[in-house]
């Protein structure tokens, strides 16, 4: 590594800031301003990775996001390491640690390289074809395939970095800070538009900023000098917000875009502390200008993938921008004029250029003539037929093309080189345009897809729309931007541009070789190791759609998403099938444009913010009293309160016994509560519930069942008549928001004539439910003046009382079958009233119980839980709740569906009780019920929906839905489990207190 590949160039590299980094365990140096790729190249390192399938040595090929080979594992920390990072994009920082991927034991000696010699046995579709048979062997194959799949290693620990999201709004969003984007930004700003300018590199200016030839001139200045002045101007422009190191990830409909800004990845690890790593911008733009530029295409020939083979534009950038020579003996291979700029840069930097190989017959453009005048050898009408050098290119073999360009003729010529710069023309970056729904058209002249139709307020300019010559780029950008923004004049109208004009074009998608195709390796997709042979094989095997060819050969499916490979793949398909490329179309470009970390996508929504939860006003008391919590919707509900070393079963048995024998207390604050007011409130309830509400008196409560229009049970709850036109409806905890939305929907869209107002008051009230034989005594201690006699305050009634200054709504309603009072107070008094109940109940051993005990208590009484015993396919009749369907009402939601031919079937699944023959055997919820388990296939009759051990009944009880269940009462059935079969008997759904006597204490 003693070669000095760094040339003097202090423009973009700060040679006073030397940075050390470690590549595959070796300490190396670069400078501030380098990318990891340029730093590696300055140390004469090309070989950085192994290809995915054949494990061929691969080197740095590009200088941007299209890089297929130089993808490295960054960092060695279990939490912070990041796989598949493009060395061409990551800025060098002091202490950077990186390693090659997909090789073992090392990148220089990789055992997997044997695949290269087995490659004739590994054609496209090899895995599909080989590992399918016999089908039962898949599990064995999978183990080995999984081990060899994948590139880098994922971090194994939680990502400790901070990520952020921010919304942004602008008049004009400009994507890409190259010359056309900068001109558009200035024109828009001069028109007083608010401009947001995104650039994925650290500096503005695109490729023109380091342009160093004397041919391109703008307003009689060197083009890069002219551009620098424009950038200074733009940086001081108050209308323009510039975000650098910010790459656009996704362009959605309605000009909604996502961009990712890198904030700390270029800093040394110590400087990152407490800083946000990346920020995701969610952008709404009135208008969008896409100036994302173009990327250079490689050429497709035998062994075109060796380390040292690079895009010509990248070789130029490494010299002109980073001051790094990619090789000391260079050869250029091209089909267009742009590579001659690389020739000039090589020459100017004093780097040896052995020859230029050009597939065209000749060219006489200004830039080519200039190169000719320098005495550089140009092989016209020649192609490369082979390259040599396993870990670094050392020779190319060239031959003359025949007239048709489909074969080679004459003698082989060998040229020495340690760097081969290739150029196959340019591909406009239309990814974002197509992501946004835009349609492309094919330009036969340049063999490119360019933006055509769009439904959005957007414009593509510069090389992103297919302009490649400096004068076209500038003049069309100015003209199109003005038209797009409806501006008459701009400060660029008199711009004067001098540049070389390309006058010869020639393109051959798959270059001919002296060997038959089957003996060559012309790579298309470097990362996925797919070759032109694979494409042709796919076509022979009958794959016609380009989407199918892509998936079969995996062309374009690497982390670079085919940025380099796709055009050649399309071209070869078109040539082979004699199709016009425009008719073939492209594969779909999907977001993100470059990979995003999960951290950026989730932003701050991690840990406790991943899914916010709701707490009742009594939550702290539950925590203090050792409650275990259950998630119900977004609520945290107390599940059970274990004492000492109690298991859940122990705690539930104790809690439910206490509730039945003395007194229990439940936090019922989470139930949905809807305040209903208006002169038509009663009519409204009649329409939304199955039962009749007309005769409900003020101060009384009624249970209601709500259906969907399809007749299936949707929700249930108790509604209290507070006043003449005033009701308080309760809903299930999980269904509250949906019920509210459904009721609003009917009111606004079907029954706008009704005078009804709905207000969600779920969060406004806290509810303590006190139940058990001693409940009355406790309530009496708290509300001394309240008459609790059955005459004055019967079951299903309501009283409004005051406790000091606190307004309390007390309902005598029961979900446990016990005498029970629910005290509703304003939420801020919730904990106070709860503690008051606990204090008053102390002498009765009042026992707080959670949702699990609540479920057991109600199951003993056969009360359903919507969503547990129902699943959207149960009618009230299926639930044996015929009594709640009003016969008198003309209509209510779902009524008509209750006598559809399907809902009146008698063999529907119906709710029943189940008792196990062994009273200590507890069924599993969800277990299947069968009649005969020997007759195959076994006929499933239904399943268990709720199952508990009842301490009061001293036996196991269950609810289940069962086909024709109503008729099966008393029948013996089976519940087969994995290790045994449980015998059960179908029973009534009410297990305890069938006479409803406990309700009166």
């Amino acid at each position, binding site marked *: 590594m003693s070669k000095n590949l760094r040339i003097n160039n202090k423009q973009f590299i700060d040679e006073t800031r030397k940075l050390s980094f470690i590549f595959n365990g070796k300490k190396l140096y670069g400078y501030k301003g380098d990318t990891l790729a340029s730093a590696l190249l300055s140390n004469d390192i090309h070989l950085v990775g192994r290809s995915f399938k054949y494990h061929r040595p691969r080197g740095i090929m590009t200088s941007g996001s299209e890089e297929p080979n130089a993808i490295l594992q960054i960092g060695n920390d279990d939490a912070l390491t990041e796989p598949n990072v493009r060395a061409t994009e990551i800025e060098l920082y002091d202490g950077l640690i990186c390693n090659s991927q997909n090789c073992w034991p090392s990148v220089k000696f990789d055992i997997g390289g044997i695949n290269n010699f087995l490659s004739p046995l590994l054609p496209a579709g090899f895995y599909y074809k080989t590992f399918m048979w016999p089908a039962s062997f898949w599990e064995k194959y999978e183990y080995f395939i999984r081990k060899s799949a994948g590139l880098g290693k994922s971090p194994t620990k939680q990502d400790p970095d901070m990520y952020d999201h921010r919304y942004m709004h602008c008049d004009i969003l400009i994507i890409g800070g190259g010359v056309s984007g900068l001109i558009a930004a200035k024109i828009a700003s001069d028109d007083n538009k608010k401009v947001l300018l995104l650039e994925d590199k650290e500096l503005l200016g695109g490729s023109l900023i380091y342009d160093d030839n004397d041919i391109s001139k703008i307003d009689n200045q060197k083009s890069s000098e002219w551009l620098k002045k424009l950038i200074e101007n733009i940086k001081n422009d108050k209308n323009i917000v510039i975000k650098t190191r910010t790459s656009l990830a996704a362009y959605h*409909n*309605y000009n*909604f875009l996502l961009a990712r800004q890198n904030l700390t990845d270029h800093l040394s690890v110590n400087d990152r502390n407490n800083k946000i790593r990346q920020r995701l911008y969610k952008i709404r733009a009135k208008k969008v200008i896409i100036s994302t530029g173009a990327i250079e295409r490689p050429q497709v020939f035998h062994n075109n993938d060796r380390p040292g083979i690079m895009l010509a534009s990248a070789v130029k950038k490494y010299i002109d921008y980073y001051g790094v020579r990619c090789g000391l003996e260079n050869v250029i291979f091209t089909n267009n004029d742009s590579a001659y700029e690389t020739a000039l840069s090589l020459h100017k930097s004093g780097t040896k250029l052995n020859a230029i190989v050009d597939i065209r017959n000749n060219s006489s453009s200004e830039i080519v003539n200039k190169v000719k005048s320098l005495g550089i050898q140009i092989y016209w009408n020649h192609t490369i037929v082979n390259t040599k050098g396993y870990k670094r290119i050392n020779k190319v073999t060239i031959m003359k093309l025949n007239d048709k360009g489909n074969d080679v003729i004459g003698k082989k010529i060998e040229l020495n080189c340690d760097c081969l710069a290739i150029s196959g023309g340019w591909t406009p970056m239309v990814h974002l345009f197509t992501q946004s729904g835009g349609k492309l058209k094919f330009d036969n002249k340049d063999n490119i897809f360019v933006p055509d139709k769009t439904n959005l307020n957007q414009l593509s300019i510069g090389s992103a729309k297919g302009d490649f010559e400096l004068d076209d780029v500038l003049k069309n950008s100015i003209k199109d931007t003005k038209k797009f923004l409806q501006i008459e004049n701009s400060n660029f109208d008199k711009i004067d541009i001098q540049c070389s004009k390309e006058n010869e074009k020639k393109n051959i998608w798959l270059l001919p070789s002296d060997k038959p195709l089957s003996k060559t390796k012309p790579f298309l997709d470097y990362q996925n190791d797919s070759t032109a042979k694979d494409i042709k094989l796919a076509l022979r095997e009958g794959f016609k759609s380009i989407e199918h060819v892509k998936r079969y050969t995996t062309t374009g499916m690497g982390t670079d998403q085919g940025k380099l490979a796709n055009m050649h793949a399309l071209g070869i398909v078109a040539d082979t099938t004699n199709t016009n490329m425009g008719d073939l179309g492209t594969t779909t470009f999907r977001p993100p444009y470059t990979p995003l970390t999960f951290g950026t996508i989730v932003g701050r929504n991690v840990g406790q913010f991943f899914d916010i939860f709701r707490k009742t006003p009594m939550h702290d008391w539950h925590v203090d009293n050792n409650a275990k919590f259950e998630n119900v919707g977004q609520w945290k509900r107390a599940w059970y309160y274990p004492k000492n070393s109690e298991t859940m079963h122990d705690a539930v048995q104790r809690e439910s016994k206490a509730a039945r024998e003395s007194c229990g207390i439940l936090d019922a604050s989470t139930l949905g509560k809807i305040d209903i007011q208006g002169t038509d409130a009663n009519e409204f309830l009649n329409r939304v519930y199955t039962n009749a509400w007309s005769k409900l008196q003020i101060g009384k409560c009624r249970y209601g069942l709500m259906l969907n229009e399809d007749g299936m049970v949707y929700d249930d709850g108790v509604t209290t008549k507070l006043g003449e036109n005033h009701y308080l409806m309760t809903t299930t905890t999980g269904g509250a928001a949906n019920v509210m*939305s459904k009721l*609003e*929907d009917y009111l606004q*869209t079907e029954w*706008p004539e009704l005078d009804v107002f709905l207000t969600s008051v779920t969060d406004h009230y806290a509810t303590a439910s006190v139940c058990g034989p001693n409940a009355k005594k406790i309530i009496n201690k708290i509300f001394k003046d309240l008459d609790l006699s059955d005459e004055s305050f019967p079951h299903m009634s309501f009283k409004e009382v005051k406790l000091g200054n606190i307004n309390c709504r007390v309902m005598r309603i029961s979900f446990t079958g016990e005498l029970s009072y629910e005290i509703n107070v304003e939420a801020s008094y919730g904990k106070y009233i709860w503690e008051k109940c606990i204090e008053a109940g102390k002498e009765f051993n009042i026992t707080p119980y959670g949702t699990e005990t609540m479920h057991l208590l109600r199951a003993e009484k056969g009360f359903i839980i919507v969503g547990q015993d129902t699943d959207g396919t149960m009618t009230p009749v299926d639930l044996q709740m015929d009594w709640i369907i009003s016969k008198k009402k*003309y209509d209510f939601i779902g009524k*008509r569906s209750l006598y559809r031919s399907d809902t009146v079937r008698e063999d529907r699944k119906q709710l029943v009780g189940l008792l196990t023959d062994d009273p200590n055997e507890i069924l599993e919820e969800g277990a299947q019920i069968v009649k005969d388990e020997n007759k195959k296939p076994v006929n499933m009759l239904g399943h268990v929906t709720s199952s508990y051990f009842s301490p009061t009944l001293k036996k196991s009880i269950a609810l289940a839905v069962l086909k024709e269940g109503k008729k099966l009462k008393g029948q013996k059935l089976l519940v087969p489990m994995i290790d045994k079969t449980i015998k059960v008997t179908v029973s009534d759904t009410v297990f305890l207190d069938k006479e409803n006597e406990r309700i009166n204490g």
Partner: protein
Amino acid sequence: MFLINCPYCGERDQSEFVSGGEAHIARPKQPTELNDDQWAEYLFMRKNIKGIQFERWNHAHGCRKWFNVARDTSNDKIEKIYKMGEQPPKL
């Protein structure tokens, strides 16, 4: 991500809204007079066309009002927004 011009609040992000399916399917006034097929037509049958579709949308995380949207399903362009009770526009 659509930008929806709520007739009561103005332009808001799609994330504030929920879609309520096809519009202009009025609940029958006399369901009991309908046979099973007629009721099923109301209950289950919905169009799924490529082109202009009339839909109900609700500004759920805003004013909670329902309104109608004429949307081109081929490109998601919202052609027209109009209030509940208004007739669908001719497009």
